[in-house]
């Protein structure tokens, strides 16, 4: 099976040289569903940041979608990011844009046709049950609704990889369930690789998944 992520002797550190992840080895198969767990401050979000190139490896190698991220050029990194969908715990929606335009963002960046963009956004708004809110702005929505918008944005351009950083952290049951359903759907129907950083793995997940746990800068697979 193809590997979408391959890390070899990967060390991650912040600018103050504090090592967060120390010489880890792991890989993620294309089309798989992966959970990364760990205590607060263990480095799971840092690892996620490094996967989309926001933090460069200090040592070792990290290959994502065939792109080596150590010393990657900004144009190559942009190319890679155009094939990744990201969901943040704090949503990262553009406040001055409507919900509709926020979901359109990856489609605009990827140069999709206007009609395709419009259809895709309408479909996604239906999936996240926010069709009636399309013209509203992020700050007019609840936290759960904003996270559903972020989810729709992550799915909009049919990415090869979805990265979600505690996507249901502060959400109500209804929104949480909707988010999990969307991630399951993307994985099972579109064969999108999904990596979720979380404290709690949902009990009733309808897909097979791998579970990595980070502790003291090391990673190990939990069976």
């Amino acid at each position, binding site marked *: 099976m193809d590997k979408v992520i391959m890390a070899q002797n990967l060390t991650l550190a912040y600018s103050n040289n504090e090592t967060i992840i120390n010489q880890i080895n792991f890989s993620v198969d294309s089309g798989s569903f992966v959970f990364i767990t760990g205590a607060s401050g263990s480095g799971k979000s840092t690892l996620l*940041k490094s996967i*989309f190139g*926001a933090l460069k490896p200090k040592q070792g190698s990290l290959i994502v979608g065939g792109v080596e991220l150590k010393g990657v050029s*900004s*144009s190559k*990194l*942009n*190319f*890679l*990011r*155009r*094939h*990744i969908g*990201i969901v943040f715990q704090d949503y*990262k*929606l*553009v*406040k*001055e*844009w409507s919900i509709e335009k926020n979901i359109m*963002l*990856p489609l605009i*960046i*990827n140069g999709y046709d206007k009609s395709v963009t419009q259809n895709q956004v309408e479909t996604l708004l239906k999936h996240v049950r926010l069709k009636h809110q399309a013209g509203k702005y992020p700050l007019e929505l609840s936290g759960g609704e904003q996270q559903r918008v972020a989810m729709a944005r992550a799915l909009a351009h049919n990415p090869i990889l979805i990265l979600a950083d505690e996507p249901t952290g502060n959400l109500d049951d209804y929104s949480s369930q909707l988010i999990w359903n969307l991630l399951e759907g993307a994985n099972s129907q579109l064969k999108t690789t999904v990596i979720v950083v979380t404290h709690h793995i949902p009990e009733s997940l309808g897909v097979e998944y791998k579970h990595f746990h980070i502790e003291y800068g090391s990673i190990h697979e939990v069976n």
Partner: protein
Amino acid sequence: MKSIRNHLSLVIALLSILFSMQIFIIVDRSIDAYKENLANNYAVVIVSQKRLSDEVVLGINKLIASSGELTADSVIERLNSGMDKKNIEFLKLTLPKFYKLKLDHYPTPQEVITLKKDLLKNSSITKIEDFSHNHDTTYKLLLLFKGVVSVFALSIFVVTTLLIFKELRIWQFKHSERMSIMGLFGAPVWLRSAVLFRLSIVDAFIASIFAFGLFSYIATNAWILKQFESIDISVVIFNPIDDFVLLLGVAISLSILLASFIVLGHKEEV
């Protein structure tokens, strides 16, 4: 309302730059026109023992545009009390020749010195009156005026450029979140900063149009035209095509340059 306020601060700063630039252009044109006027009225008078042909005089220095002999009749008329005709004719022959030299342009003091040296190389020329004292004073006054206006225009340019830079920094803070989010989804730098460039170019257009209106009004204002007429010079205050293109070019270039600095200085935040 908020959007108008956002634009206004940059438009006003750009307008001040364009205003000071056009004022400098007008002063420069006025000084050139005034110098031309002075050159027309300015002449050097030389005294020669022998008659000098036009070719000889024009060949002395390139600055000399034309020469004309001054008749001695007025001098002789004053002495003509009881002198007989024969003596008057003799006097006419023995009196030195006076020539009035018109110059090609209004000379600098250095050019006047060189001209005098060249004229004195001709052995028959015995005296030169260059009215250098008056000339020096007028010339220095013009230079001083131009210098003061240049310093003033440059100061406005520097101060307003800093203001624009500051304003664009505020924009950057406003747009940095959006730019970072776009970066997370792989937007290239030009796409992330497109809004910044679009806003600054739009503001450059608005400022240029305001400057166009302002100077079109000034160029047709009767009081201002009368002032130029009173010092006997004719100046193009504002050329609606050439000057507008220049102002627009400066405004757009400056906006793009400053926006580029801001974009290059932007750091991604996650």
